[in-house]
């Protein structure tokens, strides 16, 4: 459903992506691992249209999306929960979730989806009137994930959803992510926590300084000695 073909992107003179290609099938969970500064965030931002693509092509469900504005790409069905969560700090939890469904016109259905998110993350349900900025880091991550889900994406880009969170919260977040495939939502999961990501993913890619250097099934990568040396912290 998503095909990224040989894209280049960057910031001014910095070339952060140097010919990256990957593909994601419908309902599939694909992990992208790589060191800090490898270009993972840039890759997701380029797919979403926030960072302009200088060459190459991104296709979603067969149609080219390269050059579309971010809001148009969201409308096509690509959700994005960005690095650092970036919830709206001075909007209430409810308003944050409602903004997740900004592109939707079926208000009643959207309410049901918001209730469903609160079912997944009960703590959000009990904080609906609170400002987003007053939530703890873990709660903010749940809100960011919930906000993206209310948009009913067919493909969801997740950028470091476990970063800086307590183990219990990480487990909860990964549990919800694991359940997305069952609901038919394809996921691109960018993670520092390579072990957990490769366990969930059907396939994975390794990104190093703007290039894909390895790819394979989750188990293959998890057992690859180069991946183990560089990203799994074992010899």
């Amino acid at each position, binding site marked *: 459903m998503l095909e990224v073909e040989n894209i280049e992107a960057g910031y001014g003179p910095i070339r952060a992506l140097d010919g990256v290609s990957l593909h994601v099938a419908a309902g599939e969970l694909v992990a992208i691992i790589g060191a800090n500064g490898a270009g993972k965030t840039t890759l997701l931002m380029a797919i979403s249209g926030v960072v302009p693509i200088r060459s190459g092509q991104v296709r979603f469900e067969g149609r080219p999306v390269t050059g579309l504005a971010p809001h148009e790409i969201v409308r096509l069905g690509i959700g994005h929960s*960005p690095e650092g969560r970036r*919830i709206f700090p001075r909007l209430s939890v409810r*308003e944050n979730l409602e*903004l997740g469904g900004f592109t939707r016109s079926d208000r009643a259905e959207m309410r049901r989806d918001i209730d469903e998110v609160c079912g997944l993350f009960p703590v959000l349900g009990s904080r609906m009137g609170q400002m987003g900025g007053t939530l703890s880091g873990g709660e903010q991550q749940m809100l960011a994930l919930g906000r993206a889900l209310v948009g009913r994406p067919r493909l969801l880009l997740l950028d470091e959803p476990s970063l800086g969170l307590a183990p219990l919260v990480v487990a909860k977040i990964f549990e919800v992510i694991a359940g997305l495939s069952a609901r038919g939502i394809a996921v691109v999961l960018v993670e520092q926590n390579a072990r957990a990501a490769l366990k969930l993913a059907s396939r994975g890619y390794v990104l190093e300084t703007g290039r894909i250097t390895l790819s394979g099934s989750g188990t293959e990568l998890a057992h690859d000695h180069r991946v183990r040396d560089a990203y799994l912290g074992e010899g």
Partner: protein
Amino acid sequence: MSVQFFLQQCLIGLTNGALVALVALGYTMVYGIIGLINFAHGDLIMLGACLALSLVTALGLATAGPTATWLGIALLIVACGLFCGTLNVCVDRIVYKPLRNAPKLAPLVSAIGVSFIFMNIGLFWIGPSDRSFPELLPSTNLLPGEGLQFTWKDLLVLVVVVPLMLGLSLLVKTTRLGRAMRAVSQDPTAAALVGVDVDRVIAATFFIGGALGGAASVIYGLYINTIGFQMGFQNGLYAFTAAVLGGIGSIPGAVVGGLVIGFVRSLSSAYVGERWTGAIVFAILIVILVFRPEGLLGRRTKEKV
């Protein structure tokens, strides 16, 4: 120096302040959404006043009957609102939008440039000397007794400004556009990633801020009765000060700041002397900012999550 005199100054302060607040909203809304101090806003309003004067002349409102006069005023407000709103959107599209990712100084200097261009257009439009804006409303006192003066002009200010402010706060708090505006002001990228068309929301903000300025320009003409191509500078400065005083970016802050400036101006003109008013207003601004740099209703810290 009686109580009555004091109350009279307060009434003057209230109407003046309401007018300042209406202009301040244009500064604070644009700042809130893209972090730009739109120095051209005062001159935008000057152009609105020029249009209002031209329309008054063209429609012959100075000699119209009472019903026609009120209808004419309503028409002026709508026309000048549309004019200033549209002009503001055009300036954003042509001048500020290409500079969205440039260093902050670039759009700021451009705004000063736009201000000068507007002033030149105003000079061309109404000429170099001040023009008197016809008295369209009777100066009969609406309050009983001899003492306090509250005329149709004063009433007009409140009748226009109060509903506009209530409407604006309702729009920002409850509508889909309002929610998108608040989202963009807090994190434009995150807003884009939930499907908000950020450029459209910014354009809408410029339109609303400009349209409020257009309404203010008509009221200014009818209330002050003198307009000139340089009026944008001083009035803009007072309104900008009001926005900073209230907490720039905050809509209630602009209203409070406008009222504070209105009261300080009228009271200091009455009790200290007109020529000291400017100095007093800015002395108060400095004192408040020393103790509350974020302004009266501004946020204390820029939280970054």
